[in-house]
């Protein structure tokens, strides 16, 4: 069909065709700009301009009731000596690292689900996926109850074995881990869906050949599934780390202010929210946001650099 169109076009007289083609071009240019105009304006106003505005704010000091004054690099300098920021940074990294456990769990679950002839795939998939689409605020409230030190089911269960569990979300030594477990719980389903999709593109004949070679299921998993799945694993990890570095909802609802564990569990974005919208210290908050951007760039950059070593593209 394309060939036909080409023939039709070249059959026309050169002059006329060029004219028509340039008219076509002008038309496309006009429509092109017209069609992207809403997005250009919308994203320009709500995303692109704000980046520069925030950058500017990160060099200013805010007054309590509006107004800001140029403050040079003070905000950035304060950032690296502020124990609150350093705490938040440490918490965020630990949280991101822990929540990445949902990747291996997701792989295992999807590998089990991917067995040919297994019944009930749809049912399992539904169960694992429900946490993904449940309102995070509701998830957090539910788990806060589960974790309650005095009457929460977790501690009541531990009590059966004579273990006296801690107050999970109020104890500085456990709060961050308790929240990370919820993060893992609620993202396993998402990862599973992506891994299942990835696994279904792996050609069946590879497994059949391995079967004939006498390779067991476990061996097949390591020699075929994992390498073939590595691009998906890479994608899931990159997106997962970026999301985890921006953790906010669970901390806000499960920990919240006036919690003795806040210092040991607040994340960068929680601190950003607190500075920008509770303490009205927008200048400092802007600097925190750029710190976050820096961290995301470093982590994503590292992953892209490392991928050469383990991701197999065909």
């Amino acid at each position, binding site marked *: 069909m394309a060939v036909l169109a080409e023939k039709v076009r070249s059959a026309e007289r050169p002059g006329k065709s060029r004219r028509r083609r340039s008219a076509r071009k002008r038309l496309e240019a006009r429509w092109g700009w017209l069609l992207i105009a809403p997005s250009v304006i919308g994203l320009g106003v709500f995303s692109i301009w704000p980046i520069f505005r925030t950058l500017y704010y990160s060099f200013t000091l805010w007054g309590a009731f509006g107004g800001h004054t140029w403050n040079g690099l003070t905000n950035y300098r304060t950032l690296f000596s502020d124990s609150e920021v350093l705490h938040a940074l440490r918490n965020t990294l630990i949280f991101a690292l822990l929540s990445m456990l949902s990747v291996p769990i997701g792989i295992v679950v999807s590998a089990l689900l991917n067995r040919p002839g297994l019944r009930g795939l749809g049912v399992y998939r539904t169960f694992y996926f429900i946490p993904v689409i449940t309102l995070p605020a509701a998830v957090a409230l539910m788990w806060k109850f589960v974790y309650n030190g005095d009457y929460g089911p977790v501690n009541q269960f531990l009590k059966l074995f004579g273990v006296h569990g801690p107050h999970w979300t109020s104890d*500085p030594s456990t709060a961050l881990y308790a929240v990370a477990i919820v993060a893992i719980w609620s993202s396993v389903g998402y990862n599973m869906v992506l891994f299942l999709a990835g696994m279904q593109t792996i050609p069946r004949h590879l497994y059949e050949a391995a079967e004939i070679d006498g390779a067991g299921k476990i061996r097949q998993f390591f020699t075929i599934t994992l390498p073939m799945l590595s691009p998906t694993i890479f994608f899931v990890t990159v997106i997962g780390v970026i999301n985890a570095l921006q953790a906010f909802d669970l901390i806000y609802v499960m920990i919240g202010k006036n919690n*003795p564990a806040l*210092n040991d569990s607040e994340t960068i974005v929680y601190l950003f929210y607190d500075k920008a919208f509770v*303490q009205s210290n927008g200048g400092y908050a802007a600097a925190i946001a750029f710190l976050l951007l820096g961290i995301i760039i470093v982590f994503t950059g590292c992953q892209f650099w490392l991928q050469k070593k383990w991701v197999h593209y065909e």
Partner: protein
Amino acid sequence: MQSDESPVLNGAAEVKVSDKKQISRRAVLAAAPAAMLMTAAACSSSSSSGTSIDSEKKQTGPVTLTYGLWDDTQLPAMKKIITEFEKANPKIHIRTAVTPWDSYWTKLQTAATGGSAPDVFWMTLAYFQLYASNKILMPLTKPIKDAKIDMSQYEPAITKGYTWGKDIYALPKDIDSIALWYNKKLFAEAGLRTPTSSWSWSDLLNAAKRLTKGNVKGIAAQLSDQQTYYNMIPQNKGYVISGDGKKSGYDLPASVEALQFLTDMINKHHVSPTLQQMTDTDPQQMFGSGKIAMYYGGSWESIAFKAIPYALKNCDVAPIPQGKVRKTVSNGLGNVIYGKTKYPREAWEFVKFLGSRRAAEIQAEGGAVIPATHGTQEAWVKSTPQFHLQTFVDEFQYNYGFPISINTPVWRDYATKTFADAWTGKRPTAAVAKDVAKQMNGALAKEPSRPA
């Protein structure tokens, strides 16, 4: 409502248009009417806003004022006050804007910045100086004088708290104090006599030890400044902030000793639930269900305990145990006027009514808070006869005003967050107190100086 008051219009006009303090103070001090007129003229000519309020030009059409507040349990009483006010002032309508405490101050700060704060709103002591020093509020000294309002009818701790420089900025709305709530049933079971006004810290501790049994703890040593250490520190002759508002007192030996008294109840004597436990379950809830025998609680909590059948039946309240001296902290709200309101005259009329005896009586009957007006508090005491609420009112004899500076929230929040380390026993109380004092002194040093 005092209806025989002279019109306040002249005063309000000056106060309203004079954003610059010198002028308003001069106006207040000016004795000769001629001088006052001249000042008023100077002010209105320099004012950019068109709403001048000399007594001749009355606002004619109906006016709607916005009244900002945060506590919806007090809404019924407020609505009742508003209904009476609107009946007496048919040309003024009041619209209430309730914002939960958590977002109230963020929202107000943004609104004040953008010039759109409510015309009249609730103020609390912790935020007052920040708003007064940034000239967000309208000074009321002049209109109070013109309306011949007797300020001695209000609790002095609150009136003093809402004074900034030479001006007063609020008419006191309510007042509170802290006392010792206790569980009669648990006391009887432990064979203990109920707390008396002569109780000292050691009496409290001894009782707490005997009351701690099984899953019941003797007392809640809460990490809550107003309910605990703002009382214990001055009781031990320490202070939170020095009189000139420049220095933290958290690192004084007397203050550390008071803090230690609280943290020891958790970590040494084990007569209080841990901080982690009190975070998971609100101590108020624990006390209300008999899991704690004693509880440092505010006068405002009587309405919550009244609503819990168990507490109403088994609990009562006694004076806060004394240390070296008798002390309790009192906080209280005030009704303030936004400096940039379009209707200063109407706003003042409303605030005047909110500060009136009638409004105080309505609040007292509601039972949620103790009105700041003397002679109306009896009705609050009677609102829940099951509890000895007179205790709270009697404590006003030895109360002191909430410790504040210009930027109170900064060091106050830091203190609560950091004291958690002492409460959980992670670090020694003295070390944490020193840390907090250092941080607080740093914050205080950054504050602008106070007016003379």
